[in-house]
């Protein structure tokens, strides 16, 4: 497909030690920092999930008081969304997009450094609220007024940490778009780009279009609380429901921001381990774009029970159900890629396969939730929790793990421990279902979400879910250990790493030298 020449793999002459990381403009260094930060936040958010599941292990209030429980649900969501999943994808984009399009680095390297370094400060601001009088925000990550306006000292910290995360995301997205549109190697036409690059390009458009809207929404919350505005106050002519509209105009594209790059990763891995090119490449691109477009006109399906006009409910229901069409195209294309392929089942492929199965379960429960009369029953129940955890954990998170195992040899130059990877996969895949599948049942039976106590008929399923969650939580230590080991040494990886791997990133040596594609490769 392509040839690559790597000139002068000399090391940086820049600062060493900690200053190297503070001042770096290298996309590989910055990608690594994003990924390490994301892993750290994954464990912080995971610890909060453990608190939640420990409290829900049996009915009654035993471990934490309800206020703290609410802080945990709120912070778990914020940390996992903005701290774990999004930075992981940005980290993967930083590492892989320049390698995949044959660029010497990201287009705006200093901006890239800024995008990353804002994040640790944003999460310092957010996590410090746990130690403030009144504790962390507890009104849910969706920050609905008027409830969120009752947050104590944590409130401005919440708002400004969201602002910082937004600034970081917008600048990161600008960098990715410019890199893809301006830095491609000669011959790398748009419809030759790897799917991961395509899905990230579209994700970056989504980020630029919706993160500023979130900034506007939280700014209105801030002025409503401190400066006397009445955006969300009916007495002044505003409307609390208006916040939900603005928030979900951001929020729905946001959930696709967390899944489109996952689609890209899966679309890289399945062809490699099926030893066949991706089935329906261009339809994958068009499906991604269609999903992105639809994400802007479905937001009110998150709020079917607020009392919106019937015409609105109908429109948002049908628009939402339409999303199943391009998503179905993707799932069938993945399956068709594997059809008659010479498949092998290394860890990345196992995670990718689990993604296809389990993300699809989350997609189907999403379809159920899209139906207005049914949603009136499901709304704010554990069924919703089951739905979005299926698309986010065995969906987005499994895709990230698949991507990490897939590209880790390229980053470190060593093979990870395949046995431990497979063990990690099987424990994760079983425990994730143990955790989230019973939530469908308790949700349909009427258990509301975001409560620390529940009726006794839900006890058995909750106990199963908690056991699953503890197992899932602990098994992630295997993941961290495997990465650490792989960074330290092991079996040497070849440049191509995987027998069936295609693409520019596999033409450079493993580990990828500090500078790659200083002279652009020629793509035929």
């Amino acid at each position: 497909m392509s040839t690559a020449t790597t000139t002068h793999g000399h090391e940086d002459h820049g600062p060493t030690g900690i200053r190297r990381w503070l001042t770096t403009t290298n996309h590989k260094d910055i990608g690594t920092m994003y990924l390490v930060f994301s892993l750290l936040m994954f464990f912080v958010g995971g610890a909060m999930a453990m608190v939640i599941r420990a409290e829900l292990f049996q009915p009654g209030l035993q471990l934490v008081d309800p206020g703290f429980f609410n802080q945990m649900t709120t912070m778990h969501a914020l940390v996992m969304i903005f701290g774990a999943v999004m930075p992981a994808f940005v980290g993967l984009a930083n590492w892989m997009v320049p390698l995949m399009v044959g660029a010497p680095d990201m287009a705006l390297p200093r901006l890239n450094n800024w995008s990353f370094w804002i994040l640790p400060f944003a999460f310092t601001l957010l996590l410090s609220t746990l130690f403030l009088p009144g504790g962390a925000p507890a009104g849910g990550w969706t920050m609905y007024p008027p409830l969120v306006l009752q947050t104590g000292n944590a409130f401005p910290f919440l708002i400004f940490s969201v602002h910082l995360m937004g600034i970081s995301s917008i600048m990161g997205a600008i960098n990715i778009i410019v890199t893809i549109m301006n830095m491609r190697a000669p011959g790398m036409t748009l419809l030759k780009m790897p799917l991961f690059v395509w899905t990230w390009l579209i994700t970056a458009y989504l980020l630029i279009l919706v993160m500023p809207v979130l900034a506007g929404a939280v700014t209105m919350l801030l002025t409503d609380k401190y400066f006397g505005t009445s955006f969300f106050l009916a007495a002044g002519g505003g409307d609390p429901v208006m916040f939900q509209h603005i928030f979900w105009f951001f929020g729905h594209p946001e959930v696709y921001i967390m899944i489109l790059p996952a689609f890209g990763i899966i679309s890289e891995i399945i062809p490699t381990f099926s030893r066949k090119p991706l089935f329906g490449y261009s339809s994958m691109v068009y499906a991604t774009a269609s999903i992105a477009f639809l994400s802007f006109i479905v937001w009110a399906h998150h709020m079917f029970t607020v009392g919106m006009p019937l015409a609105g409910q109908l429109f948002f229901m049908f628009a939402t159900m339409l999303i199943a069409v391009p998503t179905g195209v993707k799932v069938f294309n993945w399956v068709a890629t594997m059809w008659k392929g010479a498949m092998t089942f290394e860890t990345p492929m196992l995670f990718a396969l689990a993604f296809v199965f389990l993300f699809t379960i989350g997609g189907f429960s999403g379809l159920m939730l899209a139906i207005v009369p049914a949603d009136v029953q499901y709304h704010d129940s554990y069924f919703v929790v089951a739905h979005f955890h299926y698309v986010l954990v065995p969906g987005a998170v499994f895709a990230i793990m698949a991507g990490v195992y897939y590209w880790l040899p390229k980053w470190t130059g060593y093979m990870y421990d395949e046995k431990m990877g497979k063990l990690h996969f099987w424990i994760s895949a079983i425990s994730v279902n143990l955790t989230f599948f019973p939530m469908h049942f308790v949700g349909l039976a009427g258990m509301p979400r975001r409560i620390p106590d529940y009726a006794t008929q839900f006890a058995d399923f909750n106990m199963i879910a908690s056991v699953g969650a503890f197992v899932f939580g602990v098994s992630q230590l295997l993941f961290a250990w495997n990465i650490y080991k792989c960074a330290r040494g092991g079996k040497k990886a070849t440049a191509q790493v995987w027998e069936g791997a295609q693409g520019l990133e596999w033409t450079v040596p493993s580990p990828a030298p500090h500078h790659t594609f200083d002279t652009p490769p020629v793509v035929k």
Partner: protein
Amino acid sequence: MDQTHGYYVPHSSNWPFVGAIGLFLLMFGVSTALNGAGFGSWVAWIGVAVVLFMMVGWFGNVISESEAGMYNLAEDRSFRMGMTWFIISEVMFFAAFFGALFYARQMAIPWLGGEGNNFFTHLFLYPEFSAEWPTNGPNALGGDYQVMAATGLPLINTLILLTSGVTITIAHHALKENNRSLTAWMLFATLSLGFIFVGLQAYEYYHAYHAMNLKLSTGIYGSTFFMLTGFHGMHVTLGAIMLTVIWIRVLKGHFTPSHHFAFEGVAWYWHFVDVVWLGLYIFVYWL
């Protein structure tokens, strides 16, 4: 400084991290100040100073690299694309506030007046309220107020911004034709018009607060009026500062007829604040 390959990749820079610290101090300071801590506003001002320091240093680096001829067509294209998408993100920030304005006018207020299936809301909560715009809501928050007219100062401000859009275009054409004195004068005219706009806007706010009892707390009308015009005014101020920077650069002999991205980036930004103002004038002042 690595120039061995085609695309310029700076090796390392302190400025982004300095900028991250500055933003953190600013936001931490404002947060603690809002919580009533006396030191909060001091920390915030230090944060502002650090951010300004970062901007001077970072942009200084970029300008000297540009003047040293380190940027070619590819870098230029990156800057252009980056600026374009930055402006689009700014448009979406304003879209959130315009969205709030339209939602309040088209949905929230008619519903409070009993439209649609909100008959009982109206009857039980706010029977006295009749849906109209502008309004400070059923509880008349902030008390009696006067509405800001579309004529007078706002109309003059509209003409000022539109004129400044013309002057910056003349400046751009002059730069392309290498008529540097006309460029400098027209830039000076543009930035002066910008600062005059901000001054008049400040006067308008003063008048609104002291003579019209129109405040940020005057219900949804005051909220949308001040937040939209306020954020716009902040952007005009920023744009005028940017104009000042490139004016000084023109006086120092920077830019060539074919290579002047910074000029164009600022011009785009200026047109963006201009267009936002037209939207504001139509939907906030006029209709």
